[in-house]
């Protein structure tokens, strides 16, 4: 009797989990990716910048230009060209013979619409209207952007970082729908179209009518791109070892040994640092609190941290030590080497102690830790979000270094929302932060570092969490924005001044470069980018915002393994 009940129950449970028809995707025509999607795909709205399903912007929606960070070049994409026809007017020539994946022609109307909608809906592009006057459609394939105040660097960032949306679909959407709608059945101009999605994956299918096939001779070989939801880095590690992924962008503990271990997994560089540097990990110090407001104290901290230990032990050499200026290797040409030699910090505990002593920090009560010049006790904490295991390990190194020179610093691991809260409301002492990714211009870094006004930092959520108040720095960042894109010398001049401020005042201390984590398997697809001469030098990343930094070109270069 009981057995029959069980059988019945099991049968009912079986019926529970059934749905559509089965489909098996051929391995040889499928590209498996992972590392972007941390939860089930829940949105295909490209304006949901932190949460749209992998590839929504990049594979389906596209931008006016691509940007190649390794060569510092713009590649015309949906725009054939972009030119300043006068000091305040930027003219875009739109590419012809491009179709939306529902068959409608793509024209200047869509581009104008994309800019205009940013006026009414609060989306990523909206701030451009602070300095943009109007957008005019000159003809079906020409658009003019008329600026009140041309901020060249910022525009240079928008033209590759912003999805172009179809007017015939989006015009009828309410503002709420535009900013926070789910965006099912996305209609884009891109190489791939929505095929299917479920709890554990997102399936993109190749767009047979992609414009770049004929216009640029580009043809991506994978018929399907299946992005798998990942839940944790260690599971991803197991999957990578077993060859489940072709391209994986998780941070994988121990990846260095995997690469050297003969599993057929490779990274961009065959040896340390294995990965291209994607962003800088900074140590933020809260300048609204004592003794972080004392520049001598900050300098001491900078000299006390053994970043090499973080690089070698915690990360197993898959990251590299940051330049004291904090600028990424792709911006090496802007780094004022002389200035860095003169003013830059390095690991030097003796010097740290000397700086502290010289500034009046003495260990009055002989507990091994220094007190402030006014005698008050110092007991500080450095925080990272709980669960971010590599950062958790790293701040142990940071605090050990500080304690060795007499600074009472302890590591703490609040949950992410608390960490975020203390960041936004300046209640932390010190923390690690790596918000800004690589981009077309160091201006994005300085804009982030010297964000103002200070009073609005909490709601703007866009940088300067240290609350560094320096009018000169703010002005210089704005000045940098006004330098023309491509004017390397002009940029260097301004950047050098910014670097000087950063190196002397150290409102935040650059520690290491986090990698653009990327592991690739040669089992099914080859011709991945690498540092070798005969490979392409594109970015193998599925992260949001990276497809249009040549990720799509990487895709088109892939070849099936023999």
């Amino acid at each position: 009797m009981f057995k029959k009940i069980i059988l019945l129950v099991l049968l009912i449970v079986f019926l529970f989990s059934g749905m559509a028809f089965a489909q098996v995707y051929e391995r040889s025509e499928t590209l498996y990716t992972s590392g972007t999607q941390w939860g089930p795909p829940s949105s295909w709205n490209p304006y949901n910048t932190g949460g749209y399903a992998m590839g929504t912007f990049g594979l389906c929606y596209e931008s006016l230009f691509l940007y190649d960070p390794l060569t510092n070049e713009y590649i015309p994409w949906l725009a054939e060209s972009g030119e300043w026809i006068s000091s305040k007017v930027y003219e875009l020539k739109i590419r012809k013979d491009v179709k939306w994946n529902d068959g409608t022609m793509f024209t200047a109307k869509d581009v104008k619409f994309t800019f205009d909608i940013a006026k009414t809906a609060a989306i990523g592009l909206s701030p451009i209207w602070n300095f943009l006057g109007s957008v005019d459609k000159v003809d079906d394939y020409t658009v003019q952007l008329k600026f009140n105040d041309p901020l060249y660097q910022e525009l240079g960032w928008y033209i590759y970082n912003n999805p172009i949306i179809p007017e015939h679909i989006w015009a009828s959407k309410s503002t709420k729908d535009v900013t926070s709608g789910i965006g099912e059945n996305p209609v884009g101009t891109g190489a791939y179209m929505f095929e299917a999605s479920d709890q554990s994956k997102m399936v993109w299918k190749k767009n047979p009518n992609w414009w770049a096939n004929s216009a640029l001779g580009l043809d991506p070989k994978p018929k399907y791109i299946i992005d798998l939801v990942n839940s944790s880095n260690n599971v991803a590690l197991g999957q990578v070892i077993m060859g489940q992924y072709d391209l994986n962008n998780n941070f994988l503990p121990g990846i260095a040994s995997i690469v050297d271990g003969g599993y057929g997994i490779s990274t961009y560089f065959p040896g340390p640092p294995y990965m291209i540097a994607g962003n800088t990990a900074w140590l933020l110090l809260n300048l609204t609190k004592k003794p972080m407001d004392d520049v001598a104290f900050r300098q001491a901290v900078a000299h006390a941290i053994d970043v090499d230990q973080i690089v070698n032990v915690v990360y197993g050499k898959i990251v590299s030590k940051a330049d004291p200026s904090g600028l990424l290797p792709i911006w090496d040409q802007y780094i004022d080497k002389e200035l860095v030699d003169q003013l830059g910090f390095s690991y030097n505990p003796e010097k740290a102690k000397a700086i502290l002593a010289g500034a009046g920090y003495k260990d009055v009560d002989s507990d091994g830790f220094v007190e402030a010049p006014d005698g008050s006790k110092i007991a500080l904490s450095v925080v990272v979000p709980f669960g971010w295991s590599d950062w958790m390990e790293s701040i142990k190194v940071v605090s050990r270094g500080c304690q060795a020179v007499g600074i009472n610093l302890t590591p703490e691991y609040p949950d992410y929302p608390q960490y975020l809260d203390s960041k936004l409301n300046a209640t932390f002492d010190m923390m690690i932060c790596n918000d800004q990714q690589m981009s077309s211009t160091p201006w994005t870094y300085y804009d982030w570092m010297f964000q103002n006004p200070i009073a609005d930092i909490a709601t703007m959520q866009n940088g300067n969490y240290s609350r560094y108040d320096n009018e000169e720095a703010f002005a210089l960042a704005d000045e940098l924005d006004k330098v023309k894109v491509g004017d390397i010398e002009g940029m260097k001049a301004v950047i050098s001044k910014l670097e000087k401020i950063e190196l002397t005042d150290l409102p935040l201390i650059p520690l290491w470069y986090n990698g653009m984590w990327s592991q690739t398997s040669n089992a099914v697809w080859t011709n991945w980018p690498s540092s070798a001469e005969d490979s392409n030098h594109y970015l193998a990343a599925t992260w949001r915002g990276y497809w249009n930094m040549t990720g799509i070109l990487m895709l088109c270069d892939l070849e099936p393994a023999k």
Partner: protein
Amino acid sequence: MTKPKKRINEFLYFALKNKRLRVGLSVVLFFLILAFVGPLLTDYKWDDYVGPAYHPPSYEYWFGTTTFGQDVFTQFILGLKASFLVGIIGGGIGTLIGVLVGFTAGYHGGMIDEFLNMLTNIVIVIPTLAILLIISVYLKVRGVLIESIFIGFTAWPWAARAIRAQTFSLRSRDFVDLARISGMKPLKIMFTEIAPNMMSYLLMTFILQFGGAILIAATLDFIGLGPTNAISLGLMMNLAVLWGALPLGMWWWFIPPGAAIAAIVGALYLTNVGLDEVFNPKLRKL
């Protein structure tokens, strides 16, 4: 009174003879000694970087090293101590509360029993994880003590139920009725008449709570809700999984902690069976 003393002697005799009790207790004792003597065998702290990473067990590193080159043996020893502490304190608190609630409910019956029963049910149903969340978020630094207290305060229902049932059956016995008739206060009856007869039961309940507390602590540690300033066996497994010990084949990092927990808790359960046989003559033949 000679009666209790003779009974204790009788128990001791059977206790020493009982194989299960002997085996169980020796295993627990072994680990207990290891937990307290162990730290003398190692100079390291649990998170010191002491050697080459990913190193399997060797002469120098008895249990190998972790992904950062920390000594697994050190982590194991210190983790043992933490786990024992949680077991004793958490189990102790749970038993205490459970006994109080169970006694009162069983003895008085009626409305008090109904009320306490309802309370017990509610505590069982409520997602303890949610409560632990809040607590863990407010306390920047969580220690072993807090975890034990929490476990004690949420694991008592099991003890309460068992004690209540036992109290029910005992209170209707003759000697209790005698005491009541003779005018003894209920509280005094509870402690002087009923309790001694339940001693064995109380002991066994404590052992179960002890084992349960260790398991619960391991689970909490594993999902990261455990102590933030110490290492424990559950935390070892958490770290091992987090840092890819499984795919990288670092068995020396995740096998010892779980094996130790299984061994200790298993031994505790075995001890319980043994004790049951000792206290309950009817069971002794099998």
